[in-house]
C-alpha cells in the first residue's frame, strides 16, 4: 500500500506572502499521478493541481505550483500571493490504478 506523509499539521501565512506545504510518498511504481486537493470549511474536495510522474516539468496553476522531486519522492505545493480564500485543509494524494491514497492534511490559515 502506498503511504503519503504530510508532516505539517498546520501552516500560517500572511496575506500576499508565500507558503510551501510538504508531502512525501512511498511507492515502488514508476508511473503514477500526484494531486493536491483543497478542502475548505464546507468540506468539499476541490482539485488544486496535478502532476504526472513521467513529466519532469513541475505543474503550475496560477498562484499554485509544485516542486516534484521523483527520486526523493517529494511533492511540495507552493501557494504564492496568498489570499484569504486560500484558507483550508490541503491534502496531498497519490494515484495509481484504481484509488487515491491521501495524506493526513495540512491546515492553512491566512492572516490578514
Amino acid at each position: 500500500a502506498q503511504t503519503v506523509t504530510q508532516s505539517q499539521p498546520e501552516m500560517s501565512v500572511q496575506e500576499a506572502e508565500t507558503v510551501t506545504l510538504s508531502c512525501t510518498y512511498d511507492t515502488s511504481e514508476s508511473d503514477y499521478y500526484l494531486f493536491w486537493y483543497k478542502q475548505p470549511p464546507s468540506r468539499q474536495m476541490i482539485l488544486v493541481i496535478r502532476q504526472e510522474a513521467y513529466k519532469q516539468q513541475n505543474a503550475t496553476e496560477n498562484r499554485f505550483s509544485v516542486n516534484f522531486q521523483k527520486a526523493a519522492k517529494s511533492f511540495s505545493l507552493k501557494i504564492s500571493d496568498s489570499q484569504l480564500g486560500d484558507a483550508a485543509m490541503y491534502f496531498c494524494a497519490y494515484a495509481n490504478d484504481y484509488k487515491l491514497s491521501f495524506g493526513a492534511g495540512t491546515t492553512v490559515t491566512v492572516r490578514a
Partner: protein
Amino acid sequence: EPEVTQTPSHQVTQMGQEVILRCVPISNHLYFYWYRQILGQKVEFLVSFYNNEISEKSEIFDDQFSVERPDGSNFTLKIRSTKLEDSAMYFCASRGGGQDQETQYFGPGTRLLVL
C-alpha cells in the same frame, strides 16, 4: 462545467438502519469511487467501480456495504445496518475520458450521522 452531485447533503439515521447515499457522476466518466472521511481524519478509500463491477475495495468495505449503478446515471452506496462508527462524510468521485482521465473529481459529500 460538469460536476459530480450527491444527495442527500446530510443524513441522520438510527443505528441498525439502512441508508443509501446517491451520486451522479460526470456523464462521460467511466470509473467511480466512494471515499469516507471521519471528522478530523484523512480521507479513506472505500471502493472503486468500473464496467458494472467492483474493481477494488478496502478493508473498511465489509459485507455491510454495497455499491450499485442502477441506471446510466446514478451510483449508490448502501450501508445495510449502520453503526455509530459509520458516522462520517462520504464522498463520491468519478474519473475517465480525455486528457484528464486520471483526475478524480469529487462531489460535495454526504454528511452521515448515526445515532
